[in-house]
């Protein structure tokens, strides 16, 4: 077990659960309420300064652990050391909402919008949570397991204004 992970466990104790992972990778699970605190700790005190990716996962119909239905994976990387950690966050079925990390990383802005667009998971506190890959009038969330792959929506009206009040949100 590596040093940053040890420090994470020492700091958060049972609030962070180490997951069994394939290929020697490091994965932990945290509750939505602890998410921002944990990733901020990882960024500021464990050196994981890059938010590489957010991955929404829909487990509807998955052969094991189909509840809660959604999970979001945060891929963090330490630029200097090359270490990586994956933070798994289960999304509460009733609210479908996680706290936003946009204040910690500029990258979170678009990544969270993508998870919202394709899975319908909200990020509380995100200043501009609108669709990013699908058309702004698209109905439903395309990467949910119950969105049929053949369902087409013919949408061509462009969005007139993209500009936002605060350039930080663009």
């Amino acid at each position: 077990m590596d040093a940053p992970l040890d420090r994470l466990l020492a700091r958060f104790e049972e609030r962070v659960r180490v997951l069994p992972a394939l290929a020697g990778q490091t994965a932990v699970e945290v509750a939505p309420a602890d998410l921002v605190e944990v990733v901020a700790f990882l960024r500021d005190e464990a050196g994981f300064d890059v938010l590489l990716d957010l991955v929404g996962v829909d487990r509807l119909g998955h052969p094991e652990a189909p509840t809660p239905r959604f999970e979001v994976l945060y891929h963090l990387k330490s630029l200097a050391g090359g270490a990586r950690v994956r933070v798994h966050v289960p999304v509460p079925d009733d609210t479908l909402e996680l706290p936003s990390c946009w204040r910690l990383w500029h990258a979170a802005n678009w990544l969270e919008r993508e998870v919202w667009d394709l899975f319908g998971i909200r990020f509380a506190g995100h200043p501009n949570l609108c669709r990013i890959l699908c058309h702004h009038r698209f109905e439903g969330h395309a990467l949910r397991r119950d969105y049929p792959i053949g369902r087409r929506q013919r949408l061509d009206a462009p969005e007139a204004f993209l500009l936002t009040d605060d350039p930080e949100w663009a």
Partner: protein
Amino acid sequence: MSTRVPPIPAERFVLNIGPSHPVTHGTLRIQIEAEGETIVRSACEIGYLHRGFEKEAERVYWEQVTPYAERLNYCSSLHNSVAWCHAVETLLGVRAPPRAQALRVLASEIARIMDHLVCLAANILDVGALSCWWYLYNVRERLYDLVEDLCGHRLMVTWGRVGGVATDLPEGWGERLLVVLREAGEAVGEVREMLSSNRIFLDRVEGVCVISPKDAIAHGFTGPCLRACGLPRDLRKDEPYWGYERYAFDVPVRSHGDTLDRMWIRFDEIEASTQIVRQVIESLPSGPVILDDPGITLPAREEVQSTMEGLIRHFKRIMHGIHPPRGVVYSATEAPNGELGFTLVSDGGPRPWRVKVRSPSFAHFSAFPRMINGSMIADAVAALGSLNVVAGELDR
């Protein structure tokens, strides 16, 4: 939430660049609010090339995703092809044979050279230098001829296989490649010479649309765009795969984070990649180019046509697919644009449960409004080319 229709003062105007415009090199839209020629605010809209790669991947077999993956960054499909196969191998816990790994390095570096040639040619063209385009595209064309001999295809190669690669090098291919690379080196040298003393060119790109190392990290920059900010991070050195640790090469780094450095670093990297390719050809290990594992790869063609066992193995493998263990893996390689990552979620079945692409262009383009606010409109054009945003991997 923002109000999506902000008030625009009378002396300013709103201008849309794209979604279909020569400088976007694809389909993406940039909206700017300008005062005279100066950009005050800007925002980007993406998704025009969203083809649902990740959705499509959930309904086909693991190995059938390979051709789709190549269409992410279509300028370097060779790299995408083998990077996807590498990701599935990481999930399976297997490694391609040494010769296949060396061939992947070779393919990946050729893809890097071709990708950089396209990026540079188009970027230089955007700022008005047409002749450089022909210099660089001529050698790219010669490289495509070699790719065609190797894979049977030019643009979309379908050359990667889970467990190895599809074909070995044709007779005399390595020697021909070295000749073409020498020509490429000459062309690159000439273009560099033409540009480095060209005041008109330098004024267009030097100190233009700078991104600070801090912002670059916060936006998740990787690859040449990050190294242009003075951060010498490269997965080929930091987390070597396919035996990259066996080759001696430099990781070029520049310090200003401006459009010029993002261009220069690609010139540097073409040289570094050429260095690697020479070493691979000199030290190519012998042996098979693909694993012989009934659960993963197809049997040899002769075996299928002459033995019942071979025929059955072929049939079962095609019909039943590959069954990796349940779980999640992330696999990253240094693509020409930066870190190309695949998150694979498996339920143990022959089809991916979920595939997520971490594309470098997505991170780079998210920083674009920050980079161009306060600059001139013409500067934004130069900066966009230097980020090499490829809509295929941006929108997936």
